């Protein structure tokens, strides 16, 4: 079985972003997606802290401490970019102005419920950030996650066991093993990595999956 690396999952998610889209990339794994947007597509990246038109990480010597992304890493601004305040940044999010938010997740349910803000560890304070705003606000929510936990537990579940970020919002799931759509007819597997059969994928997934008739092999260039 040829699982995707984290960067390869990001590559796969990037292929689906259309030219001209306004997109928010969640912190963590989704942030990597910006490295793989296909050449020739102009995509405008939004950041909760008041940026549209984020560029790549700065070259050495070009770092500006006043220019950071939502994950608080240094970033840059493309020509056409703009700065605005936090309230307008969330107006854009909540008001349905973003075409797409690509978020990380702890779990997704077969109904498209998203759990990505707390694992309820009594030893660490919870943090929600902009997750709940993005989850209800962007026109489309896609999620990037490892198919299973380090211990092998499924992350795509009948019902989320962690507290929800929002109910019924996820439309597509990218994992290291598959691309899965959340539809009214349940979870439809669109792509699987080579060497994995559908029974094997189902075994690693708590929610019931369906295999699309036109399913394809999920392969990504080395990344």
């Amino acid at each position, binding site marked *: 079985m040829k699982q995707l690396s984290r960067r390869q999952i990001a590559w796969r998610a990037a292929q689906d972003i259309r*030219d*001209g889209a*306004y997109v928010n990339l969640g912190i963590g794994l989704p942030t990597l997606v910006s490295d793989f947007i296909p050449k*020739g597509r*102009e995509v*405008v990246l*939004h950041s909760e802290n008041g940026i*549209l*038109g984020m560029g790549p990480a700065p070259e050495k010597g070009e770092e500006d401490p006043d220019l950071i992304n939502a994950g608080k890493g240094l970033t840059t*601004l493309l*020509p*056409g*970019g*703009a*700065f*605005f305040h936090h309230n*307008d940044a*969330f*107006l*854009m*999010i*909540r*008001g*349905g*102005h*973003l075409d797409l938010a690509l978020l990380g997740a702890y779990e997704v349910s077969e109904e498209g419920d998203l759990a990505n803000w707390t694992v309820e560890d009594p030893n660490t304070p919870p943090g929600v950030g902009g997750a709940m705003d993005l989850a*209800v*606000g962007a026109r489309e929510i896609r999620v990037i996650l490892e198919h299973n936990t380090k211990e092998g537990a499924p992350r795509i579940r009948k019902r989320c066991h962690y507290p929800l970020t929002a109910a019924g919002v996820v439309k597509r799931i990218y994992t290291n093993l598959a691309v899965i759509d959340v539809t009214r007819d349940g979870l439809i597997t669109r792509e699987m990595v080579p060497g994995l059969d559908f029974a094997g994928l189902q075994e690693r997934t708590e929610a019931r999956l369906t295999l699309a008739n036109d399913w394809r092999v999920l392969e990504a260039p080395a990344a």
Partner: protein
Amino acid sequence: MIDKRVKDVAAAVAGIKDGATLLFAGFGAVGEPVELIQALIDSGVRNLTVACNNSGTGEVGLAKLIKERRVRKIICSFPRTSDSHCFEEAYAEGAIELELVPQGTLSERMRAAGAGIGGFYTRTSAGTKLARGKETRVIDGKEYVLESPLKADAALIKALKADRWGNLVYRKSARNFNPVMAMAADLVIAQVKELVPLGSLDPETIVTPSIFVDRIVEVGR
């Protein structure tokens, strides 16, 4: 590539349908997208609901659209201006419905639509005739009125400059309702005096970021 420029005002208003709800920017004639409204008149569209602070001036723009009886209903704060005879005639004839909304509530209802706010409580109009039939609530001992978002199919706005992404800057008090209307419609169409190259607008001073704008047409004034 993102290129929201269209070749003329007719292309800019293409697709607006009979019965649509529209936002027209401007305060009196200042900041009013007259050329876009003229294109709308030329398009033949009718039975419109228009939200605008006033009701048109003279016989151009919104005034002309009303004169031609293409506006079924107007949502505004102040229909009477120094030269609003087109509206007044239609109103006297019963040919146009008027929903009178306090100016701040009008603007806030548009912002709510743009910001994903399902409703908000304002003290404005509490205890007055304009609050009749509206739900109220006492908050910290004061009466508030529940107001709903005002979302539109399209907004016609006017700016000074735009780039091909649709970033906009305005001029002086011609800014007025333009930025908030740009937040509140499914289709946002901006007429601008001047198109400028991408990257030539200072990112610190862009007033309407490109995400709010769908089409841009240069009209030279």
